[in-house]
C-alpha cells in the first residue's frame, strides 16, 4: 500500500484466543480517515446499544491512523476506542510517544479486541509474530513498573503500553500508560482493557511504511522543519511545554482552584512552569517525529518519600492536581501526577475526582471515619496519596469515587451534585467556564464528555466578550470539526496548531501520504460526519433527547466566581440555554439537541437517521432547512 497505511488489520477474540489478520480496508480509511473516525464507525456498527462497557460485548480498538509514523512532524499518535464506561457513550483517547508508529512499522494499522480473556494476557507483536501471552506475572503491577519489567523481559526496543491496578479493578477513569509517561487518559479506556483482562501491549517492528509521494512529502516536511526551527515561539515551547500556561491561566481567571470553587490561586508561583523546570526537570522528552519536545521528564523529591521519576506535570495535570487541590509545592504536584500515572488513572479526571472529594470533606459531607481515619485537606499530598489508594483498590468509600465524580455525587447526595465538575460523567479540563462561555459550551457539547481537546475558546471569549454568549456557538462547532481531525489522522495538534502551519499545509501533507487529493472543506465534512455519528450513538445508548445530556453542573450558573480577577462573574441558566439553542441551530439539530434527517442524509448517514428514528429521537425538521455549512472559522477582528 503506498498510502501511509501499514497494510494489515488484526481482529482478536480474547475469549477464544483466535487471532485473525486481514488486509486493511482502504475504503474504510478513505471514508473515515482512521483514528477516532474508524473507532466511531466500528463502535457504532458493532457494539449493541445495551452492552455493558465493561462486559464482553464492548469492543476495544487500537488504531494507528494514516499519518502516524510517516516522516511527518509530530506523527506519533495512536488512538484507543471503546464505548466509555465513564460516559456510557462512544469513547476515544489518544496518546503520543512511539506506540502508533511501532505498530505500523510492525505491519499493522489497527487491532480490534472482542470479548474477554479468561485469564490475564498481553498482546505480543514482533513483526509477523502476533501472540496473546500469559500476563499472570504482570497482573497487579503498577503501570510504570510493568512497562519497566516488560522491557527487561522482552527487550528495550519494544514499545509498551500498560494498564495499572486501577484499570484491573475497573476504576472508570483508568488510563493506558506508555513510554514511561504518556497516557491515553480520557474516557476510561484503561478500564475497558482491564475488563478484558488485557494487561499490556508490546510491539516491535522493522518494516517500512509506503506513502504516495515520498519526494513531495520529504520536500514539504523538510521545509516545515527548517522553518519552525526558527519560529520565535519554538524555544519557549521546547523549554516549558504547556506548563508555561499556568501563570496566564491564573492571571486571566481561568484556572480551577479548590475544585473550581474559584478561578484565582494565590500560591501560583509555587507550582508554575518556572518551578517545574528549575526544581524538577531531568530531560526534555519528545514523541516520535516531534522536535517541539513538549514533554518534561521530571523528578519529584519530597522528604520522607522515595524520589520518583515521571513525565509531567503539563498544564492540565499541573492545574487540576495543582491549584485545583490547593497544592503549594511543585514537587507535590509532580508526585500526585506520578501516583496517578503509576496506579493508572487519568490525571485530569483524577484531579477532578480528588478535588470533588476534598470539597466534600471541606463541607463535612465525608469525614475522617469515611477515609480510614485520614483527612482530605486542601494541599495535603499525604491525604491525596492515601485517598488514591482507596480509590484504585475500591476500599471503603473509594468505591464511590471509582466511577468518577458524577457517580460519587449520586451516592453522597446532599447537594454535592452541584460541584461534581463534569459533563456527561467526564471531569472538566483545567479551565473554568464561568467567565469563558465558549469554553463552558465546549465542555457541555463535547461528544466524549467534558474535554478541551475538542474545542478551546478562551482567547475567542476574551476577544468577543467574556460576559456575552452571542455568536460563540458556531465557532465552537468549527473547532469541534477541525481539532479532532488530528486524532483522526493520529498526529499531534499541538505542533501543527501552534507554529503557523496552515490547515492547507496539513492537508497537503495528507495528500502526499495518501494520494487522495482532498481539500480542507472535504476533511472538515468528514470530521462533521464522525461527530454526528457519535451524537447519534450517544443518544441511542442513553435513551433521551440530546439536550437532556448537555447541561453542566449547577455550579456553572449558581456560583459566581468569588475571588480574583473574575470576581462576581458567571453565566445565568438562561444564557446557557441560549448557547445551546444557538449551538443546535448551528449544527442543523432540532431544539431538543437531536440530529435531523436532512443533516444526517447530507452527511451520508441516512442509516443513522433510520436508527435514531426507530429509537424515537430523530430530530424534528428545521423550518427553513439546515444551514448549508455548519461551523464558522473564527476571524479575529480585534485583540
Amino acid at each position, binding site marked *: 500500500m503506498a498510502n501511509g497505511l501499514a497494510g494489515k488489520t488484526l481482529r482478536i477474540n480474547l475469549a477464544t484466543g483466535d487471532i485473525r489478520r486481514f488486509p486493511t480496508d482502504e475504503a474504510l480509511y478513505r471514508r473515515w480517515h482512521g483514528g477516532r473516525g474508524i473507532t466511531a464507525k466500528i463502535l457504532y456498527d458493532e457494539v449493541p446499544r445495551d452492552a455493558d462497557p465493561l462486559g464482553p460485548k464492548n469492543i476495544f480498538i487500537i488504531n494507528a491512523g494514516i499519518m502516524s509514523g510517516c516522516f511527518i512532524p509530530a506523527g506519533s499518535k495512536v488512538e484507543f476506542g471503546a464505548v466509555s464506561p465513564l460516559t456510557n457513550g462512544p469513547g476515544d483517547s489518544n496518546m503520543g510517544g512511539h506506540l502508533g508508529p511501532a505498530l505500523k512499522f510492525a505491519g499493522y494499522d489497527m487491532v480490534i479486541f472482542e470479548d474477554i480473556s479468561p485469564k490475564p494476557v498481553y498482546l505480543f507483536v514482533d513483526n509477523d509474530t502476533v501472540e496473546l501471552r500469559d500476563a499472570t506475572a504482570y497482573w497487579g503491577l503498577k503501570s510504570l513498573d510493568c512497562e519497566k519489567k516488560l522491557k527487561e523481559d522482552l527487550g528495550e526496543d519494544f514499545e509498551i503500553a500498560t494498564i495499572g491496578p486501577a484499570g484491573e479493578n475497573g476504576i472508570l477513569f483508568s488510563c493506558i500508560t506508555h513510554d514511561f509517561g504518556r497516557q491515553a487518559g480520557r474516557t476510561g479506556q484503561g478500564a475497558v482493557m482491564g475488563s478484558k483482562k488485557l494487561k499490556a501491549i508490546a510491539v516491535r517492528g522493522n518494516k517500512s511504511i509506503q506513502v504516495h509521494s515520498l519526494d513531495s512529502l520529504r520536500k514539504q516536511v523538510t521545509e516545515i522543519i527548517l522553518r519552525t526551527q526558527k519560529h520565535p515561539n519554538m524555544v*519557549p515551547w521546547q523549554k516549558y511545554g504547556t506548563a*508555561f500556561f499556568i501563570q*496566564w491561566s491564573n492571571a486571566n481567571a481561568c484556572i480551577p482552584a479548590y475544585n473550581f470553587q474559584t478561578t484565582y490561586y494565590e500560591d501560583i508561583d509555587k507550582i508554575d512552569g518556572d518551578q517545574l523546570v528549575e526544581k524538577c526537570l531531568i530531560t526534555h522528552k519528545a514523541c516520535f517525529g516531534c522536535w517541539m519536545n513538549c514533554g518534561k521528564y521530571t523528578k519529584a523529591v519530597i522528604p520522607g518519600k522515595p524520589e520518583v521519576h515521571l513525565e509531567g506535570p503539563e498544564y492540565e495535570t499541573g492545574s487540576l492536581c495543582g491549584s485545583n487541590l490547593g497544592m503549594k509545592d511543585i514537587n507535590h504536584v509532580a508526585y500526585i501526577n506520578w501516583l496517578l500515572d503509576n496506579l493508572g488513572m487519568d490525571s485530569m479526571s483524577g484531579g477532578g475526582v480528588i478535588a470533588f472529594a476534598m470539597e466534600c470533606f471541606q463541607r463535612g459531607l465525608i469525614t475522617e471515619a469515611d477515609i480510614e481515619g485520614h483527612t482530605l485537606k486542601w494541599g495535603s499530598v499525604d491525604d491525596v496519596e492515601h485517598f488514591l489508594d482507596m480509590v484504585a483498590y475500591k476500599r471503603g468509600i473509594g468505591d464511590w469515587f471509582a466511577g468518577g465524580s458524577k457517580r460519587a455525587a449520586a451516592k453522597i447526595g446532599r447537594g454535592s451534585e452541584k460541584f461534581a465538575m463534569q459533563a456527561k460523567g467526564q471531569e472538566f479540563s483545567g479551565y473554568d467556564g464561568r467567565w469563558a462561555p465558549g469554553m463552558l459550551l465546549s465542555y457541555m457539547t463535547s461528544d466524549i464528555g467534558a474535554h478541551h481537546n475538542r474545542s478551546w475558546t478562551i482567547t475567542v471569549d476574551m476577544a468577543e466578550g467574556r460576559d456575552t454568549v452571542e455568536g460563540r456557538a458556531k465557532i465552537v462547532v468549527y473547532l469541534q470539526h477541525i481539532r479532532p481531525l488530528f486524532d483522526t489522522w493520529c498526529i499531534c495538534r499541538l505542533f501543527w496548531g501552534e507554529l*503557523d502551519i496552515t490547515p492547507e499545509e496539513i492537508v497537503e501533507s495528507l495528500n502526499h501520504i495518501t494520494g487522495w487529493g482532498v481539500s480542507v472543506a472535504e476533511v472538515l465534512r468528514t470530521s462533521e460526519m464522525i461527530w454526528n455519528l457519535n451524537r447519534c450513538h450517544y443518544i441511542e445508548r442513553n435513551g433521551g433527547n440530546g439536550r437532556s445530556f448537555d447541561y453542566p453542573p449547577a455550579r456553572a450558573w449558581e456560583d459566581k466566581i468569588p475571588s480574583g480577577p473574575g470576581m462576581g462573574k458567571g453565566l445565568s441558566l438562561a444564557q446557557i440555554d441560549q448557547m445551546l439553542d444557538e449551538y443546535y441551530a448551528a449544527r442543523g439539530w432540532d431544539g431538543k439537541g437531536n440530529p435531523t434527517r436532512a443533516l444526517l442524509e447530507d452527511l451520508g448517514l441516512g442509516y443513522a437517521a433510520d436508527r435514531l428514528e426507530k429509537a424515537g429521537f430523530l430530530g424534528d425538521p428545521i423550518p427553513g432547512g439546515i444551514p448549508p455549512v455548519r461551523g464558522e472559522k473564527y476571524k479575529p477582528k480585534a485583540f
Partner: protein
Amino acid sequence: MVIFLKAGGELRTKLNPDVDFYTRRVETKEGQSLRDILIGIGINPAFVAFAYRDDKVTRLDYVPLDGEVITLQPPVSGG
C-alpha cells in the same frame, strides 16, 4: 529607545512585523513596561501568555532595555 518584539500566530498578525517575518521594531519611552508598550501598539496584553527574553520567562511588568529582543508567547490553545 528601541526594542524588537517577535511573535508567531495571531499575535504576529497584530504585531505587524517590519524587520522580518516575525519581528517588529518598536520605539519606546524610558520606564515603559512591556504591558504599556503592548497597549501602545494595539495589542491587548491578555493575549500574551508571557514574554521570553534571555532564555527566561518574563512577566509583562518588565521594563525593557534599549535594543532588547523579546519574544511574545501566545497562550497555548489547550494543552
